[in-house]
């Protein structure tokens, strides 16, 4: 089928210069700089951040691949 008639969208593109390895949207190394000094178990905070960040990664890549 031919394409949809759509309103043109020309996004301004302030692509952040963040290195995003596969599986990552916002790396822990960047996130930890925004947090106050971690008083408890830093590994736990990192692990949970990375697990949830991976969901955001899967969201956009699943939009691309599956939907």
């Amino acid at each position, binding site marked *: *089928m*031919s*394409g*949809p008639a*759509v*309103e*043109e*969208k020309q*996004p*301004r*593109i*302030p*692509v*952040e*210069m*963040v290195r*995003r390895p*596969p*599986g*990552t*949207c916002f790396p822990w190394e960047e996130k930890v700089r925004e947090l106050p000094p971690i008083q408890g178990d830093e590994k736990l905070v990192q692990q949970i951040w990375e697990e949830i960040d*991976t*969901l955001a*990664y*899967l*969201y*956009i*890549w*699943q*939009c*691309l*691949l*599956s*939907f």
Partner: protein
Amino acid sequence: MSEEMEKLYQERLARYVTAMRNGKPDRVPIRPFVAEFTAKYAGFTCQEVTHDYRKAFEAVIRCARDFDWDAVVPNMVYVWTGLTTAIGLRYYAVPGIDLPADKPFQYLEPPEERAFMRPDEYDLLIADPTGYLYNVWLPRVCPEVVSPGEPNTMRNNLSFVRGGMAMMQYFDAFGSQVERLRHQCGVVPALAGILKAPFDILADKLRGYKGLCMDLYRQPAKVEKACEALAPHLLKVALLTSDPNKQLPVGLWMHRGCMPFLSPQQFERFYWPTLKWIIEELWKQGIQVLFYAEGEWNPNLKWIAQLPEKSIIYHVDRGDIFEVHHVLGEKFCLSGGIPNDLLALGTPDDVKEHCKKVIDGVARDGGYIMDASAIMQDDTKIENVRAMTEFTRQYGVY
């Protein structure tokens, strides 16, 4: 679950896995790729199974209960248009909205000048694929999503909340569906996980096929670099979504790699290197790929033969399955090869005759799984699927 059902499940799992490893099981496994066929069988419209995944799941269960199949995809009408509508994805024609309720969903490719990725954006994609998708691609394919720097809107926020929660709900529901298939039907899920070739992603969702064809001549090095930039991400998604037990293959759905979309020379240069790398990396981790060779792929068999033994299950669509068996049969399990036009227009006797020819020609030493050539939609006759199933059960015994 009854002991009898679990025994049936284990028998079917062993049969399916043995064949996929190119071995000889007790009989030829049957794993039909049935999409809108399930709706026809269960009495649903295309709109119902596409827009309400619960009905799609129910349709698969009804088929799995009634046909003696070893494995089936838990939902082959995979694009849940409830989700795509909720987030405003603009590249689908949805049954019941854009199309009559009895027509399967369609993918809409935009005109070349409105491709979702512009020809001068390769460097952005190559530098940061995930950032490009969120910042550039998503606002273009979802009108409700605003670009970075634009004023935010409630509709933008809602798109992410709806999309994230709906996607979670949908994928979680697959877990229950797999359990239902096992406990109620004794049937194995045919696949786990998703993979696409980097070149196909560029063609399908970014540059469009026509735009990409121009790029092959105008900026070929950028196309190669873009495939290389996408490949580690496509590998990562395949790994994250694959079967943790490493028994089921990741589904690889290929669109533009075959003749006549690409010449063999273009295939060798642009399509194959990154896809080969992904498949080899998956196989290093023991994960097989269901290599769904949609269209005519026989001119590319010499490259596919380079893959490690057993790393793929090669699904035959329009290629000559006997030639495929001659070239690849020693290394890989094959599936498919029963023409869809025969299943839609032929008689049960025609179907049985063709199944016999295929079983005699390619399945004698194992390493074959019975299926249609391409995914079965609602034009497939129920009596012909029954004939394919019953004949294979009777004749396909080792």
